[in-house]
């Protein structure tokens, strides 16, 4: 088990290392990138941009709406009481409850999706606290034995790169 990574002072240097790793045949999924801010303008910061979050949020909203409808239906019909001449199951007032629970469903689903898909709360993976100082980490976890030298060369080539190795 060996992990190779380097810290870069700026985004162009990190992009250069990323390009070199791609040039030796590594796929974006095999390259670990960590930065202290989003780097969408650079190719290395664009991995895994497809997400189902919007659709899942909509589903969560629908679930919330269904829950509200069920709640209103049960609450108003289990012991029918005439209130101000309103129907026992009154659509207009119930729309308010339905709206609130729809939005709550969407919000909670979004947060759950974020936690799951961004792998928050999982055990620590490749990371270096220097990232918090603005450094950009580019690394490869468990490279093939025959490609270690190439990976090292690719990571250390850009100016300002500081190589680090974990494991033997």
């Amino acid at each position: 088990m060996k992990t190779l990574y380097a810290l870069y002072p700026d985004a162009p240097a990190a992009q250069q290392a990323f390009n070199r790793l791609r040039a030796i045949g590594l796929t974006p999924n095999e390259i670990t990138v960590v930065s202290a801010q989003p780097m969408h303008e650079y190719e290395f910061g664009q991995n895994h941009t497809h997400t189902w979050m919007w659709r899942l949020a909509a589903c969560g909203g629908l679930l919330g709406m269904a829950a509200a409808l069920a709640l209103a239906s049960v609450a108003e019909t289990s012991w029918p009481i005439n209130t101000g001449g309103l129907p026992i199951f009154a659509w207009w007032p119930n729309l308010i409850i339905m709206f609130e629970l729809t939005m709550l469903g969407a919000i909670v689903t979004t947060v759950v999706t974020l936690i799951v898909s961004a792998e928050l709360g999982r055990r620590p993976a490749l990371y270096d606290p220097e990232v918090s100082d603005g450094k950009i980490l580019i690394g490869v976890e468990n490279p093939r034995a025959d490609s270690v030298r190439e990976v090292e060369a690719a990571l250390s080539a850009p100016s300002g790169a500081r190589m680090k190795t974990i494991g033997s």
Partner: protein
Amino acid sequence: MHTSWRFYLLVAVFGGIVATALVAWMSQAYFGFGITGIRWPVYWGFYVTSFVFWIGISHAGTLISAILRLVNAGWRRPVTRCAEVITVFALMIGAMFPIIHLGRPWLAFWLFPYPNERMIWPNLRSPLVWDFFAINTYLTGSLLFLFLPMIPDFAVVRDKSTGVRRRFYGLLALGWRGTPTQWHRLETAMQIMAVAIIPVAVSVHTIVSFDFSMAPVPMWQTTIFGPYFVAGAIFSGIAALLIAMAALRRFLHLEDYLRPVHFENLGKLLLVMALLWGYFVFNERLVTYYGNQPSEMTVFWQTQRESFAPLYWTMVVCNFVLPLVLMGIRRLRTITGCVIASLGVIVGMWLERFLIIVPALGHKYLPYSFGTYRPQPVEIIIAGATFAAITLFYVLFAKVVPIISMWELKAGDHS
């Protein structure tokens, strides 16, 4: 990290005021509502005024932040977290008032949507139950909207601290690293939250307005109350945000982040909202005046030229004249000008809520039911202490959490 003695002094003073209010509340629970000024026919006094006021103030943060996020206003970056914090604390304080307003506050859970032993549920057709759903949805959404963009900043603090602090911030950072996937998911989540939270924020104050407009009370039953309340809430929210920003800038020396341009832009927003507020008040007053209903005109004249007139005209000066002058004249739209105008708006908006509630309840239809309301010390202490409470919470929060979103600021500089 060095903590100044001023911080401890501030916490002690405001903590003392909050503790006094707690004692006042406990005495109210013990002796009963007889020690308050709330009695027939005015059953809603300082407490409901404060409830509506604080729910309004809560519109400062999440709503403004969400709108600015969606339109991608770059200048929002140092402002958003200061604003979102106000929302959370103001909502917590506002949501306390319906409980303070209960004679038996330990039965507050009766409002929760579950049945009693005879399978009777709370009345879901009641505006008070709508409040429960709306406020809780907004509070949950606002808490998450505040927390999510704090995760990367917690990770930075985690990396820079040791011992217990490192463990504490490590827990809050949820194992954040900053991979492209995490950044992308976080930004997408914030976009979805912004889209969802804007209608929720609008709904909350509309529903609070329904507490009034659904009741057959003169000058309450009007369709304009929804948007009028929402506009007033955003108005007072911006004022609260400007005051908080000015205080943070001065006491935490954030001059490099909270720059005059931020005050200038929010000052313009305050001006727009003052005009909108004036427009709504004009509509409400003209339609009542033109309709000339005797019961409504009684309340109308109470505020225009009788016992409540001094408060009414103070409100007009604070909410309309002052911001119009200070924010309308460019030379006066300085940080000091913004703070003065905002303090005026805070006073004016509190008076507005009071003037909606008390004169109408004290003059309902037939003269036999006319009455007045004199707030008693317990109510004044509790209502006044909420200002100390929000300051205390804000100071403590700013001590524990980076009050300016570091990663968003860096991302702004980067792009």
